[in-house]
């Protein structure tokens, strides 16, 4: 606050209105109902980590059931109670609930809220040079709506009839009729309420991200100087803004069907020989609406990870990102295509084959921008002075998973091949690699890379590297064999495979997958210990631990509310000036003017020196008018 005194000239008369910013905040304002984007980001991160522990634990339980069907699960009785039978068997209905909740939790609560919520909130204001989000209040609301959604979803796990069990895609009639499954009663109701609140949370957050990126950039931060992280968060938020209302729409009609007796999705259904009154509905309609969200959701999950990777790879390869504009264009291309490929999830719904071929064509086009991204990451790494920090390892791991998972996407995108592979473990392996594990690697990369900025301390590098190798090897050991199981015809969501002839010879492979899953699960505790220990006891972080160019490293090591003590730095160059020929250091931060780096300027950059005066004379675009 003291550093800013001298700057308050023209703005001085506004100080009275802003007096409330300077009041001491109590515990509730500071840590609970906080409007500071950094605290909200940490709230999202911790909530996301807790959900990840629950979600991944669930997958381990059903992997034990699948791979080791004869095992005695009595030791889980203290946690699962009545869901384990007296002979130590997992209840088949609860198996379905586990699969459903694993999907819901991982896709929405961990990789959407935990990833986007954490890094969009944390990095957008810090990297574009803003004091906070456009509306701190809406941002706070966004988290608390998410929290409420989390509580309701969590409560549904403890219902006597079990949580929702119709798969995370909640297709009717399974999800619409309470008679369909014990979990389709109250469990499904709570699922729908929770998701409706979740959608509100995502819209509040997303609207804020877009507004902040477009309106609150600092002096000189033009769109072609934005770090790729910010581009990816912006595009992610736009995807969410357009697709989440459609999910709300489909959920709304489902609620009407369930509770008011309408027939949007239900028709000609007989239960115990008696016809239900519902006539004229179409379950396929739900799938259309759901996948219009569902497909963009895949990119909502993945794009932030790709953005984080771009930043981490360029920083730690000490090279400018290869094809900055191509990266933006490919993200825009992926985002656009995301909206016109949804029916590739529905090839086997009896769709007109011609329509199927159109969607197949559009789907395969996604390979083009994805390949551009893959090539650009690899060419950025090419001949770089690579520093293998844990964040960098996870970023390279993401590229590997993105490529190997993406290749099977080309197979699944073919409507003819999909007839064989639809709803098999091949699909499960594909999307876990390309969307699940890749995004999770993005999340890990982000946490390792920005941990010093979040908590002012460093995480243990060796433990991080061990965590990476165990996870990376573990993920491939799980999912590569899973492709084979899928081609052999194992269907998804089956309780056990012991009673079919064709599955017998794959039982050891299934067991291998389960053992690898347990191994990878245990490896995550290395991360958890490293994370929570380092928050309190980690080494103190230096100002710029990775020698990075972006603006967040110019803020104090532990920034207060308002981020910069003095005025917000102006921006004169893009964020990828690493190892520039002629420069003294191998990085030049974005706030260094060209006039100070004459030795390394290219001819066209020397011409930009004359514009620096203009940039400096622009107003601060400072929403608080001062720091705090």
């Amino acid at each position, binding site marked *: 606050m003291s550093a800013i005194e001298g700057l308050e000239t*023209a703005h001085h008369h*506004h100080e009275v*209105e*802003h007096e409330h910013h300077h009041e001491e905040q109590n515990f509730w304002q500071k840590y609970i109902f906080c409007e500071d984007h950094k605290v909200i980001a940490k709230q999202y991160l911790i909530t996301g980590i807790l959900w990840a522990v629950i979600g991944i634990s669930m997958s381990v339980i059903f992997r034990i059931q699948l791979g080791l069907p004869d095992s005695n699960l009595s030791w889980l009785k203290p946690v699962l109670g009545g869901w384990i039978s007296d002979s130590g068997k997992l209840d088949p209905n609860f198996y379905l609930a586990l699969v459903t909740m694993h999907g819901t939790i991982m896709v929405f609560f961990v990789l959407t809220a935990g990833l986007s919520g954490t890094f969009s909130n944390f990095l957008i204001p810090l990297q574009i040079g803003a004091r906070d989000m*456009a*509306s701190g*209040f*809406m941002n706070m609301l966004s988290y608390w709506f998410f929290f409420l959604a989390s509580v309701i979803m969590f409560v549904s796990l403890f219902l006597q009839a079990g949580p929702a069990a119709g798969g995370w895609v909640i297709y009717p009639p399974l999800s619409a009729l309470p008679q369909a499954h014990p979990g389709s009663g109250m469990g499904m109701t709570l699922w729908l309420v929770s998701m409706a609140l979740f959608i509100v949370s995502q*819209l509040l957050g*997303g*609207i*804020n991200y*877009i*507004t*902040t990126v*477009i*309106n*609150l*950039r600092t*002096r000189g931060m*033009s769109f072609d100087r934005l770090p790729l992280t910010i581009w990816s968060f912006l595009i992610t938020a736009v995807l969410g*803004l*357009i*697709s*989440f*209302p*459609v999910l*709300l*729409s*489909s959920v*709304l*009609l489902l609620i*009407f069907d369930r509770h*008011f*007796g*309408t*027939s*949007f999705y239900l028709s000609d259904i007989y239960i115990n020989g008696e016809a239900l009154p519902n*006539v*004229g*509905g*179409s379950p396929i*309609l739900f799938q*259309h*609406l759901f996948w*219009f969200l569902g497909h963009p959701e895949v990119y909502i999950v993945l794009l932030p990870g790709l953005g984080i990777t771009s930043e981490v790879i360029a920083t730690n390869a000490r090279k400018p990102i290869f094809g900055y504009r191509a990266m933006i264009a490919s993200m825009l291309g992926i985002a656009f295509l995301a909206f016109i490929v949804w029916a590739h999830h529905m090839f086997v719904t009896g769709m007109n084959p011609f329509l199927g071929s159109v969607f197949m064509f559009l789907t395969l086009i996604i390979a083009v921008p994805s390949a551009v991204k893959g090539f650009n990451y690899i060419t950025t790494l090419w001949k770089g002075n690579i520093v293998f920090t844990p964040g960098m390892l996870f970023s390279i791991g993401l590229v590997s998973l993105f490529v190997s998972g993406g290749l099977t996407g080309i197979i699944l995108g073919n409507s003819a091949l999909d007839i064989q592979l639809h709803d098999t473990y091949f699909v499960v392996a594909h999307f876990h690699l390309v969307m699940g594990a890749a995004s999770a690697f993005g999340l890990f990369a982000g946490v390792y890379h920005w941990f010093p900025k979040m908590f002012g301390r460093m995480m243990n590098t060796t433990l991080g590297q061990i965590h990476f190798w165990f996870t990376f090897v573990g993920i491939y050991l799980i999912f590569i064999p899973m492709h084979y199981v899928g081609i052999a015809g194992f269907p998804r969501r089956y309780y056990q495979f012991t009673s079919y002839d064709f599955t017998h010879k794959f039982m050891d492979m299934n067991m291998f997958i389960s053992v690898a899953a347990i191994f990878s699960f245990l490896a995550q505790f290395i991360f958890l210990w490293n994370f929570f220990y380092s928050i309190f006891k980690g080494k103190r972080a230096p100002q710029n631990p990775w020698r990075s160019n972006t603006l967040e490293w110019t803020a104090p090591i532990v920034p207060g509310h308002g981020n910069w003590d003095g005025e917000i730095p102006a921006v004169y160059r893009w964020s990828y000036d690493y190892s520039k020929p002629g420069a003294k250091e191998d990085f030049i931060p974005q706030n260094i003017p060209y006039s100070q780096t004459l030795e390394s300027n290219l001819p066209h950059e020397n011409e930009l020196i004359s514009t620096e005066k203009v940039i400096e*004379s*622009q*107003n601060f*675009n400072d*929403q*608080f*008018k001062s720091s705090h």
Partner: protein
Amino acid sequence: MESVHQYKVDKEPQETLAMDPMKFILWLFLVSIIMLFASQTSAYLVRRAEGNWLEFEMPKIFWYSTVVLLLSSIAMQWAYFSAKKDQFKQLKIAISITFVLGLVFLAMQFEGWKQLVSMNVYFVGNPSGSFFYVFTGLHGFHIISGLIVLFFSWMAAFRLNVHAKNLRKIQICVTYWHFLDILWLYLFVFLLTFN
């Protein structure tokens, strides 16, 4: 909110692309509403193409309610022009008319539902009728939210807080109200065309 507003009033050179964040947020909010109704109407078309579709004639009262909503939009615009010229008396009249017409519109929509019921078109039944109730109901829900926004502007107007130098609140209100009007026109024409 206040700090952003103060920023608007400053006589300073504008930073590149610094629109009023609050208005920008409103526009993004409208985008999400557009997507909500776009998905509803496309669901309607997809379902309609499958056949087994009950056809019925839209009750006349929806024509009248459309006129009422259009009139309220005109009154809203009048209120805005009055606020710009600091004509407080006209502002108060215009904004009150808008509010009352909004309430009348809601009442007429409800009356329309009653007439549908008397025509044996129910919410529970053929999806063609269900969709009609969902469209009008969802739009009515947004009209209620619009009336709440309008109510705050109305209070501000009566406290003389809306004037040529403090237009932000009423600008947001005007944009939202016109949007709800255009949204209804879309739904109305849509329901007429694809019944």
